[in-house]
């Protein structure tokens, strides 16, 4: 097992280097530079050239890449032009917020999605199955940012159950209740689509398993239906559900970009959008590489979990 994990970790290195090249190249290729973004209407060629020199952007591209990569390896992501603070500080702070939001949404969609899928499969073509299938289809079809805006309109502006935006109250204590209060709407809005996808795939995975011989054997032995579904069938189905969870984690993380904007959640998605618009090169590069590294790591964890559940995978 140890060797398997090590091999997976090593295989992540070329992936991350590839990502660093791509994000660096994209930021170098897109039109507009930080100086133009900072100077706005006052961006004369002369002012732009001078500011770019001050920002160290007049050096050749390849040289800039290796300087950046060298610092990156040492854990130094540089300084954000616009926020005038170290990129790493900003990224960590922002990622913390994203982790709370996306993590909650991910837990919500995993549990709700699997539960809905299992119930659907257990009651195939029954009322519960039809109701869930309908709800799931609806959930998948509504864009999450639109759902977020509607939730704000109904539950924050009209009913005043929840605050409109932000992560913490401007006044008052910053306890877990205040956080839940602010977290509920964005986490639900973010979880809806992924819940639907997971529910549908869990349903088909369960249906496949429920048709297998060992289930019939279990039933013949008189195991209670509840035990068959939740203990025997679900465990076998998890082998095909877990990779879906890994992919959905990526979708939840990218979906957070919209949701963070709608709910003014101070996360990394919102940070990246602002940074791209302001051509804050180092912040974009640092943020993307950091998120990519987390995603790669998460997938390794998923693969390891899967290999623990299904020994055939570990080869």
């Amino acid at each position, binding site marked *: 097992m140890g060797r398997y994990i090590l091999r997976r970790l090593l295989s992540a290195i070329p992936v991350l280097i590839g990502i660093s090249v791509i994000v660096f190249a994209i930021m170098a290729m897109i039109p*507009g530079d930080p100086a*133009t973004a900072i100077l706005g*209407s006052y961006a004369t060629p002369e*002012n732009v050239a001078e500011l770019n020199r*001050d920002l160290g952007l007049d050096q050749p591209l390849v040289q800039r890449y290796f300087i950046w990569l060298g610092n990156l390896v040492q854990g130094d992501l540089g300084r954000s032009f616009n926020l005038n603070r170290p990129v790493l500080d900003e990224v960590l702070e922002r990622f913390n917020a994203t982790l709370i939001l996306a993590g909650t949404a991910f837990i919500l969609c995993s549990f709700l999605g699997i539960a809905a899928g299992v119930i659907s499969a257990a*009651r195939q073509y029954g009322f519960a199955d039809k109701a869930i299938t309908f709800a799931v289809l609806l959930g998948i079809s509504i864009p999450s940012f639109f759902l977020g805006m509607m939730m*704000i309109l109904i539950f924050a502006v009209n009913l005043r159950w929840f*605050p409109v935006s932000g992560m913490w109250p401007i006044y008052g204590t910053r306890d877990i*209740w205040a956080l839940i209060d602010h977290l509920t709407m964005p986490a639900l809005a973010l979880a809806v689509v992924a819940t639907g996808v997971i529910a549908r795939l869990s349903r088909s995975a369960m249906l496949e398993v429920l048709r297998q011989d060992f289930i019939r054997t279990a039933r013949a032995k008189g195991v209670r239906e509840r035990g068959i579904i939740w203990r025997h069938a679900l465990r076998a189905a998890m082998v095909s559900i877990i990779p879906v969870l890994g992919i959905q984690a990526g979708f939840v993380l990218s979906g957070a970009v919209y949701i963070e904007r709608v709910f*003014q959640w101070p996360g990394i998605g919102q940070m990246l959008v602002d940074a791209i618009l302001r051509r804050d090169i180092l912040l974009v590069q640092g943020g993307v590489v950091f998120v990519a590294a987390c995603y790669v790591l998460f997938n390794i964890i998923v693969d390891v979990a899967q290999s623990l559940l299904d020994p055939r995978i570990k080869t």
Partner: protein
Amino acid sequence: MKLLTMTRRALLAAVAASALAIGANPAAAQTPPGVLVVGQVAEPQALDPHAVTAVNDFRILMNVYDGLVRYASGTLEVEPALATSWEISEDGTVYTFTLREGVSFHDGSAFNAEAVVFNFDRMLDENHPYHDTGPFPLSFFFSAVEEVEALDDMTVQFTLNAPYAPFLSNLAYPTGLIVSPAAVMEHGAEFGRNPSGTGAFVFEEWRANEAVVVTGNPDYWGGAPALEAVVFRPITDANTRVAEMLAGGIDMMVEVPPVALSEFGGDSFQIVEQAGPHVWFLILNALEGPFADVRVRQAANYAINKEAIVNDVLEGTAAVAAGPTPPAFAWAYNNDLEPYPYDPDRARELLAEAGVENPEITFYVTEGGSGMLDPVAMGTAIQADLEAVGFDVTIETYEWNTFLGRVNPGLEGEADMAEMAWMTNDPDTLPYLALRTDAWPDQGGFNSGYYSNPEVDALLEEARTSTDQDRRAELYRQMQVIVQEDAPWVFVANWVQNAVTSDRVENFALEPSFFLLLHDVVKN
């Protein structure tokens, strides 16, 4: 059945959990009296006035810092602030300021002539020990400054390399605000997150991406402000900002989207409006193509229905522009100027006279940007108006930074027309940088349409060097008449900035400078 029992139990648990969350809900609580919560359009970049360029940041800075001079309330004319008086030498190159006695920075250090010298040297002198706390993108506002000298503790003298009339006005701009040298020395590059000035509000805390909090300065030289504290909250999404305002999460919001204004019709809100030194125009390529002919340029001015644009597209959040100078510069504006009327027949006549009935033009449109209002919708309306009189208009749309990168180097060989908007602090800035022959892009200016009229050049040069305001006003008025006739641009709109406050907020007015001044504001 058991399955369903379980889900029912789970459902109950979920309902109970959310009920608990609602029970502990502080959101419905109103913001406390004396504390004003302002919804901003973005997180500030830094609270160092010399390092930033965005109006969004200026809204905070103007309340934390003071300059040597400031704009008198409701105008764009300067009045004393940290300097109580000043003298200008005969030739307009030496400005001597007498400073206000007994003023201290929020960190306790004294405000004096040395502090002023430190501020300008830090920005302008590359060898200054704290020059590396920059970059200072707008330091060219003071590029005419050759030397800043402390004559004595309370007297400071600026020597310019040539007479430069907008100098005082630039001092009133945020780039001229005075920061505490002691705080710069202490925090270095982190000064922008640990600001210290002399202003009406003292910086308290910056919770990243959440809020900047400032508290009233009881020792303010202009009298303690009425508010206990102000909280600036960044809310990037305009819809979310409107929702926060409706839900009572903020007391004041700026830059209300035109379509959302109707939401605030009731008694519980006030809408505040103020026209500012802003002009939205179309740059016409006078060097080549159809717009090289003045008649075609005038035709475009007649063909576009500016009334419809400001009323229908912008929902009344702008006024029709008559010329290159916004009326907010009351002292320099020519009141005799009438906007080009909407007259499609006259436009067709002019096109016929010019011998181009169906000129083909390429039109650069941006998706959005500072002061650009609603550029895509406006661009589409303009295209339709121009096509109605015979133009054949192809729109090319670019993201703001890309757009600036294409327009600022000049339209030659690229396009015939481009959207543009400027907000300035002196009637000199825009025409001097964008209408003179010496301001063509190859000479580092913003005259991207290559307009050239020696008469206008001469008027602008003289207005810049004259220190007599009445004489300057006269020159600007003449310039506006000529430029309107020559039509190097289509003059479209002057932005009327708006803000909404809750009915608990009193004594609030927007300034023509677009700054947000909160010294007198009261919240009940």
